[in-house]
């Protein structure tokens, strides 16, 4: 029953998940871009003088990337809360029927695993990390 519930829920809230994923993918992409700037091939083929400037730039970028990481973290928390909030009522029904928080967490976990499998199929390596974070946060929020 729990299994079916999660599958059905996922189908229903697929739109929400799409928004969620687009947000995360965009966020992760930007983050990746920032951090991989120094290992780009184009960066390695510049003259000595420009290399020094680039080194300085990378140093600054290091700080900026911390900032970006914080923003990204907040974004994930926000996106997650958004998803949970949309379904607050549903969880409320479960609880009035006497479902324990643990069981509700299980439903969310199952759903996330399904979504995770789909994402894996899409071969996006970065998403794995997001999902682990997501599972962690959803268990925490409840």
């Amino acid at each position, binding site marked *: *029953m729990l299994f079916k519930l999660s599958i059905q829920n996922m189908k229903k809230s697929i739109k929400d998940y799409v928004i969620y994923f687009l947000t995360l993918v965009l966020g992760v992409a930007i983050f990746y871009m920032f951090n991989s700037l120094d290992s780009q091939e184009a960066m390695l083929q510049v003259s000595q003088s420009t290399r020094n400037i680039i080194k300085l730039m990378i140093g600054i970028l290091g700080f900026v990337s911390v900032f970006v990481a914080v923003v990204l973290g907040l974004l994930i928390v926000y996106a997650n809360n958004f998803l949970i909030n949309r379904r607050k*009522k549903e969880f409320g029904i479960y609880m*009035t029927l006497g*479902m*324990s928080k643990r069981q509700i967490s299980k439903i969310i976990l199952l759903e996330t695993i399904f979504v995770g499998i789909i994402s894996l199929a899409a071969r996006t390596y970065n998403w794995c990390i997001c999902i682990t974070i997501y599972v962690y946060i959803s268990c925490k929020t409840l």
Partner: protein
Amino acid sequence: MENILEVQNAEKYYGNKSNLTKAINNISFTVAKGEFLGIMGASGSGKTTLLNCISTIDKVTSGHIIVDGEDITRLKGNKLNKFRREKLGFIFQDFNLLDTLTCYENIAIALTIQKVNVKEIDKKVKLIAEKLEIKDILKKYPYQVSGGQKQRVASARAIITNPKLVLADEPTGALDSKSARQLLENFEYLNKKLEATILMVTHDAFTASYANRILFIKDGKIFNELIKGADTRKQFFEKIIEVQTLLGGDLNNVI
């Protein structure tokens, strides 16, 4: 007779010291087994707050609520879940069915959470569906059936676990008069034949006239009590209207 519900000096305050609202102001009453109790009152009189406190959704500020010998104001965590699961049945104004499941599954989920085996669930669901005349719609989804049918599915879900107490918050609020009547007749059936104890909150005199006993609440206090006794429903209805007139103090609203 055995008391299913006992409310002792329940109080519920909202706000802080400078701006205190007494939603429930020292209410005490008892509900015996097999009773069909109606709670009436104007909006803002605290009737829903009272129901929320009894249903463990909300907590009382002081006082005790005892359901089936258990003080629910002291329950926490898993015990609270267990209590909700086994002793309470809920019926809401806006049905609160799960759209992702069929009507059958909506009814069955209450039992699934209790880990009853599948065969028994099937038997019970079919039995209750027949009684409430929703057998034909069991395979449909909630958004495919009418409001009255939805509410009957919801009441089936509430009653199937055989709870000690069924709590209904404005169950006819979203229904037309015909479905409302049908639902209330079902309530009567549940009450008389299946001996369910029902506590119903409503502001509608007609809905209330199906109950055996009615408590009128005004400004968080019990204002009056009516017992149906040997009256017919019509006589009872007229009495309710009378009390309501007193309660509201506005004669112009009653024709």
